[in-house]
């Protein structure tokens, strides 16, 4: 059964070219304007965007590279196939496209008629910032990414991540508890 499926899948991937880029020939670079460019197969793309196909399950694999017009140039099967230098430029670009600050404390949670208002403390470089956010549809917008990781999506479209519920302090956990399940 399993082999049959992989066989079928591989015939499909033969029939349809996913267009993986050759990790050896990929050459990302920083542009003077502050963006990431790409030299590949004789082409020079002045600004590329990296997008994760499976941001939750496979954040480091299946990365789509798109040009200025958002047209896909190709996909990178795994970032680990890149050289160290290429890897770090690619990671920097991904980090600036996917912004989900890590929450280290939940200061308050107030429920008002279908909206949940939260004060979240995010920590970056040792400095703590308090973020006010409002969450609608708690069922959908406060959800577990895996066993222990929690994501909060607010009404503006910001996303916050709690890396480990187990490691969160007792008080914060107690405030969040009613909305977890």
């Amino acid at each position, binding site marked *: 059964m399993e082999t049959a499926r992989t066989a079928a899948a591989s015939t499909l991937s033969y029939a349809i070219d996913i267009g993986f880029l050759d990790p050896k020939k990929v050459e990302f670079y920083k542009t003077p304007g502050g963006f990431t460019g790409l030299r590949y197969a004789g082409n020079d793309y002045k600004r590329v965007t990296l997008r994760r196909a499976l941001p939750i399950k496979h954040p480091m694999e299946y990365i789509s590279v798109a040009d200025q017009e958002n047209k896909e140039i190709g996909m990178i099967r795994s970032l680990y196939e890149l050289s160290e230098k290429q890897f770090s430029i690619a990671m920097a670009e991904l980090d*600036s496209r996917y912004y989900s600050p890590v929450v280290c404390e939940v200061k308050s949670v107030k429920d008002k008629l279908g909206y949940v208002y939260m004060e979240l403390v*995010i920590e970056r470089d040792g400095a703590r910032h308090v973020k006010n956010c409002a969450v609608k549809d708690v069922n959908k917008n406060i959800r577990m990414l895996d066993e222990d990781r929690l994501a909060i999506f607010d009404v503006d479209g910001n996303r916050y991540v709690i890396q480990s519920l187990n490691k969160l302090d007792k008080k914060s956990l107690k405030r969040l508890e009613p909305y977890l*399940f």
Partner: protein
Amino acid sequence: MLKSHEFSYDLDLTMQPANGILRFNETGTIESCIGDKAFLTLTADEVAEVLVIPGVGCGLICARLNDGSEVLLCRFTMSCMKEAGEFCKVVNYYIKTREYAAPEKKEKPVCEKCGRHFVGELTVCVFCYNKIGVIKRALGLMRPFAGKIIPAELFITLSSVLYLLVPLFSRKIIDDYLRPMKGTFQQILLLAAAMFLARAIGELIFILSSRVFNKGSILFANHLRNLAYEKIQKLSLNSLSKRTPGDLIRRVMEDTTVVKEFISDGGRWAMEQMILFVVVFVILIVTNFQLTLLVFLPVPVVCLALSRFWRFIHIRYERQWRKNSKCQAILHDIIKGIRTVKSFGKEEMEIKKFSDATRELAQVSSDNEVMWAKLFPLMTFLTGIGEFLVLYFGGYKILNGALSFGVLVQFSMYITYIYAPLRWFVSFPRWLADAMTSMVKIFEILDEDIEIKSVTEPKNVPIAGKVTFEGVSFGYKSYEPVLKDINIEIKPGEMIGIVGRSGAGKSTMINLLMRLYDPNQGRICINGVDIREMDPEHLHESIGVVFQDTFLFAGSIYDNIAYAKPDATVEEVIAAAKAANAHDFIMKTADGYNTLIGENGYSISGGERQRIAIARAIIKNPSILILDEATSSLDVETESIIQDSLNRIVKGRTTIAIAHRLSTLRNADRLFVIDDGRIAESGTHLELMKKKGIYYRLVMAQRQTSKLKEIS
């Protein structure tokens, strides 16, 4: 002092939180600073365009320079997205026109005072609004009904007070007649009768007055509902499109119901209990001061405990409720998609999904039951605390001879009046808050400005002349332009076809022409007059439109066709139906034109639906006819039949047709090809075919697929 537009952003270039400002002033300088340091300066002369590039959870503004290179101006979180779009608009406008135009102040979706988001589609903050003002206004609206409501309420309270007499009688029986063992049978009978009477009269008054009361509150709710409904009818389409239909319906129906229920249940009950509380308090104080203090001593503690208790319970039950709705959603999905499930042979998987969900629900429910069983006695215990105290100290005093037995009985009877309501009193604030929010929502609708501009001096030119789009740009979201700088002119009587990929913005052009939305830039004119200066009603009377997703009202086919022209004659309705090729299928139904359609009526197919919609659009003989994929659900044959009759109708009328099947548009006078929000090509079918551009490719692609169909 230079005029400038500022955009405050909140991330630095390395994605760390920061306070930055992107400034654009009227001399055309763009400056990006973090703290006081400007780390980047550009002039508008160098820049071709600035644009927002959305990321995931964040975004950035990028300046495309004249030499084609690009510069990163700033990064920000999604909280700044709207303002970023505004900023780009200001700069791009300057680049195009060399004019500095400050943007109009837009209402922010957050509260100025506390920075919190508004609930739902409210534009006031549920934390900071003027609560007293809302109550005052609600009371003001209730005034016409006060004549019913207030006396009824008073009588209801009176009936409860009559109940309160019962313990007094008990005390008298015990202290004066029973304890001394010297009362006569008559005396006891008299008192018992008085007790009975007090109860009976109380009950009677209650029944009568609560009827009056309910009637009053229903009238009040209807009054509110009518006010809101009338207002919605008067609002211009533009301000209506700010809210979803669901929201408006909820405001008219649900919110008025919430307010009504609050008045007839919660509010009334609270007032009654308050009065009772005071009365009991006074009676108790007069009877025995010390014992009264004892009774009231635990009240604050009990209140606190109860409110904690409720919070705890509430959270648990809400969780159960959510699990339950998840189960229902799964079930709903499976039943609706049963064909798909079966055809993929996935029944097992779906069964497992559902049974997992129900198992979880069962677990939560049983946990809750257990918890409730444990906690309920505790609650009873809490509300019974006063009784313990009274019995203990009262009994102690009786033994010392400092208190009569009757007084003790009276006290323990009154205690229930004090403690039992506490259970519910603690949830009263929530109740009140819900009612207030509903009230605020209703007031918002009542306060909405009817757009005066469209009403005061409407220039109602006959909608027959040429239609022009002049530099029209538009986006549903400020940072995602859908239409960019559209310039077209449509001559009277012309038949125009609009083609383009799905999502290109074709329907959006129609929405703008119908004034369901106003353009962000540029204007749309008919006969040289901006449609914003016309009476919307006048505009809609003269345009017949068949939308992509047609909506038919519940009612007969006849009513639906005659909807646009209620005074239409039967002949007109039949003629319209014939023109739309709907007549034949209508005649096949048993009830003909009287066939009921909609929710509970005869179910009609997508194609039939569209034909009725076409009939509805043409019956009022509009001078402009808009067909937005009006024939897309029809088979080729039916379409060509309708097309023939449409061709007859279309003659002499300005027609704008959007069609998926390009062959439908072959006899259009001119075609516009929309690509990426711009007019990419225009001309007749032949011209465009010769050009071998986008249109040519679309036609070729369609021929290919239709050939494939023919073969198979």
